[in-house]
């Protein structure tokens, strides 16, 4: 018997950094999300094995526009992880990323796993954000960091694998003795049984 764990992941980052492209690549192994007819582009799921468990990522897209920024807390509340994306060719997007990290630290769920994706690494010749900066920053906040390319399918899987690894394994006792029903409480890491 393998337990399925549902993990809510929200995508944060400036418009145009490639959030939707990353998810599209991850979920469908496809780059152009506009031709993917099966799933909505705002909410997607993908299940991947992780050790003895299956991790089902429930991926929530967010609107990147500045004026919707204040709505973000609704989207990241109850998230197990946040994928914060910047465009390595845009210094500004890295700045925005820092703002997101700060906000998450202050208002985000406790123990949220933060994964930083420096996207468009295929365009490293016009890079504005050095990898070193990103790595140092990520280390300082205890986040995962990878440079990705949704276009060339680089490090996409790894990004999510990294998240999986950071998710603390289920406490078996908690799993067994879950007699009391938690109603109305957001328990994001709900466990489901399957064969």
């Amino acid at each position, binding site marked *: 018997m393998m337990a399925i764990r*549902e*993990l*809510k992941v929200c995508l944060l980052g400036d*418009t145009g950094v490639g959030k*939707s492209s990353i998810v599209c690549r991850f979920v469908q192994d496809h780059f152009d*999300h*506009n*031709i*993917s*007819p099966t*799933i*909505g*582009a*705002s*909410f997607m799921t993908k299940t991947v094995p992780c050790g003895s468990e299956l991790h089902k990522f*429930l991926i*929530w*897209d*967010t*609107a*990147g*526009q500045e*004026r*919707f920024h*204040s*709505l973000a807390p*609704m*989207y990241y509340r*109850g998230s197990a992880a946040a994928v914060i994306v910047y465009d390595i060719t845009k210094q500004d997007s890295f700045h925005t990323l820092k703002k997101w990290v700060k906000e998450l630290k202050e208002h985000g769920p406790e123990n949220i796993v933060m994964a930083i994706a420096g996207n468009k690494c295929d365009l490293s010749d016009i890079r504005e954000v050095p990898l070193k900066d990103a790595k140092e920053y990520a280390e300082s906040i205890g986040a995962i960091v990878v440079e990705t390319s949704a276009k060339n399918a680089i490090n996409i899987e790894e990004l999510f694998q990294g998240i999986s690894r950071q998710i603390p394994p289920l406490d078996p006792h908690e799993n067994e003795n*879950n*007699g009391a*029903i*938690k*109603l*109305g409480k*957001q*328990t*994001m890491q*709900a466990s*489901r*049984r399957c064969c």
Partner: protein
Amino acid sequence: MSPAHHQLPRLCFPPQPGQLTPEPQTVSTRERSSLGRSPLSGPEAGTLAMGRPEEAALLQLEEVFSATLARIDSLVLQPLLMLEPTDPQSRECLQLLQQLRKSSQQLWKVTEESLHSLRERLRHPDAIGLESLLLLDGADRVLQVYMEYIESYTSCVVTQAFQKAVKKRSDYWRSRQKALQQQLWGMTSEGSMDTKLAQVLCQPLTRHVQEYVSLLRSLRDTAGEHRPACELVAHATTLFENLQSFMRQALDQAVATQGLWRTLSSRLRDALYTPARRLLQDSQDMPLTVTPLRAERVLLFDDILVLLQGHNVHTFDLKLVWVDSEQNGCVFHLLTPEEEFFFGSKYRQDQVVWQWKITQAVCQALRGKKDFPLLGAGLESSKPPICRSMAYTFLAEGRLCQATYEGEWYQGRPHGKGTLKWPNGRNHVGTFCQGLEHGFGICLVPQASEDKFDCYKCHWREGSMCGYGICEYGIDEVYKGYFQEGLRHGFGVLESAQQAPQHCKYTGHWERGQRDGYGIQEDSDRGELYIGLWQADQRHGPGVVVTQAGVCYQGTFQEDKMVGPGILLSEDDSLFEGTFTRDLTLVGKGKVTFPNGFTLEGSFGSGAGRGLHAQGVLDTDALPPDPSSTCYRQLGLGIFPVESRWQGVYGPFRDFVHTGCPGDLQEALLGFHVQSSRELRKSQEYLCCESTQLDDSAGRMEDILEELLQHRDPEALQKCLRKALSNSLHPLGKLLQTLMLTFQATYAGIGANKHLQGLAQEEVKQHAQELWAAYRGLLQVALQRKGQALEEEEDTEARDRRVHGLVLPLMLPSFYSELFTLYLLLHEREDSHYSQGITNLSLFPDTNLLEFLDVQKHLWPLKDLTLTTNQRHSLVKDKCFLSAIECLQKVITTMDPREKLEVLERTYREIEATVSRVLGQEHKLPMDDLLPLLIYVVSRAQIQHLGAEIHLIRDMMDPIHTGGLFDFLLTALESCYEHIQKKDMHRSPR
């Protein structure tokens, strides 16, 4: 009638030539056919028809008897009646003699009739059969007349009526003595005049019956068998033989009774004498010992049993005497409504006789007519029934003193259906067991003031109220709920009349007659609602008070007052924390949080003037008001654990299920239909029946369980549950109804307060769980009864799925209105901002709005804008994304959270479909595009109280959807709602 049919009897009884009377032409078909069937057409009938010597003798006998009766009438009965009744005794005497004469006349009449039938028969022996004789054909009627005469006669004997009558006119009778002796046959010369008269009035009768018997016997012996006429002869013979025995016994009893009346002291005679009463057995003739009551004499009459003990006379109506069949040596046990005792005898034989006689006397008394021919020789069972229906008035001191019970009895005790009436007007109609009220019953108890009654409609157990009941105390108060040992216990609602000066309503738990445990008290006068714990009829423990004025507070209560630290929320959402005085002013160390976020912390006191006096620090630097601190503050959370809040409601259902749903407890649990007490008093009888009637219509437990077994696959189960929940006679429906009652009591009226939303929503979800548990319990019982394997224990997840997927949608409508009101109040402010937002946005033409919301131009459905000649795109309104808008508006048409979420999903699909249509290809919207479009659709859908909707959906949403698509869509909707509230949405169109 067909000729063929006509011939049939002739074939059966071929007529003998010469013996058949020629048929006259005028005889009707009916008569002919009856003649044809008649036994007289046979050869034997022919012989009989010639006339037997017995018939002639009978004729003569009747002639003589008729003449004798006539003579007795004129010579004895008529003179006896010439009596001037001067006192009650002689009046009674006269009455009895009149009765005797009436009986005698009847006797004469019947004799004349018999005579007539004999003459007819002898005149036309061929045409008229033997069976036409009254003595044969009407033997039973003749017998009846004889028995009535005997009855009248023996009554005169017992009463010594002849003696008394003669004494009154002794001169007359002395003068008539000779004449009588000459004219009356059978009159002896010895003895007093009254004994002579007594003889004259009886002797001819006995002799006559004797003659009957001997003539009938010879008639019977000469006639062959198997013929109906012969059977009639045999029957009549037996009857008159029996009559002889009956007469002998009646006369013996009369003599014995008369003897008893003569020898008894006048006090005892006055107490016991009635003309109809007959002595059956006297312990002076056959000794008997009685324990524990030491009676020195026992008299068994035909209607009562009498124990004489010193000056005391104990009489027992035989109809209410039970002889315990269990033999125990030389004693036997007698049960009566109020006493029981043992009869014993030195000799086993005597004891057997007594027991037999009492038993037979009881039987006879219950049958209401004399055994014929002899006591104990009745045709019916010689064992008296254990269950009887009778009325009795209790005499002994105690609860039942002077009360009259009318109804069913068992072994000396009221048992079964009955009515118990006390002289003070108290009145109980219902079922009884072992002498006590048990089962459904209605009791009326008069109040001190004349025309008011307390009315208890309840289940009783061993004499006191137990189970569900409705009690009306005059017109002032009503209690509906559970009882135990006659006291309110468990869950119940006590409400004073609406028009009462101090209208009060308590909905909650009781313990031995007092409010105890979790309970809600509404005091309409003070506009206050207390939600919390009680002890010994007082508020005690954690509690919350909500007032109509808007002030709410929470704290710990002791002896009805709030003590120690607590919190208070004022109307303007200021929060006070600390200790309060009786008039709710903060004293001592405390803290005030103002709605704008400022806090004041320090020492408070009631100063000289009005208002709050404080010494402390006012913090104006505090963060902008955290919504969760004051205006959204929820009361009662955590202090009343939701699982145990309504134990008194869940408990009885759980117990009922645990004991296997016994049918006899069904009504005690579920209650019954209610009628107003006014109607009730009018016809109690009817109501008593009504409750049983209900048992049938309510659906017996077996049917209810069977139905559950039959509907277990998901779809059928849903239907079945829906039906059950809407039926208040179904355990599940009743449970739901009771829960609704508690919910309304807490959250409607004064309780419709935003600070109670948290309590309410967790309660609804708990109720859904309990309803599911109740269903599971019933199902297990149903399986158990069928001997089928029990359902496995569900894991939490499976249970949650059923509770949220199945039960909650079915039961939520029952709580929706109160619940939604709470959400509405809680989100009132945001909703009004949102409302302003959509009103403003509604002023925008479609394209303006799309632009205003920054929807990318290539997604605009301009094709949908059909324009009239001089219209421009920029003026058209309410045309774009119409399908999505109309879809979203349906969210308020259902109360089922899942259906609401499905509406949302369809709305999303509609938006996507419209965009795909515009683009000419399948298009999946990323959030950047979706959100502005969704805001557009939401603003156009103009759903009222969207905030309340969203929060209610979220709270009631199946947790299985958390993080999933539904959650995502709901969050998207919520973010639109939030966005629309923003200031920049209040800008007017350019």
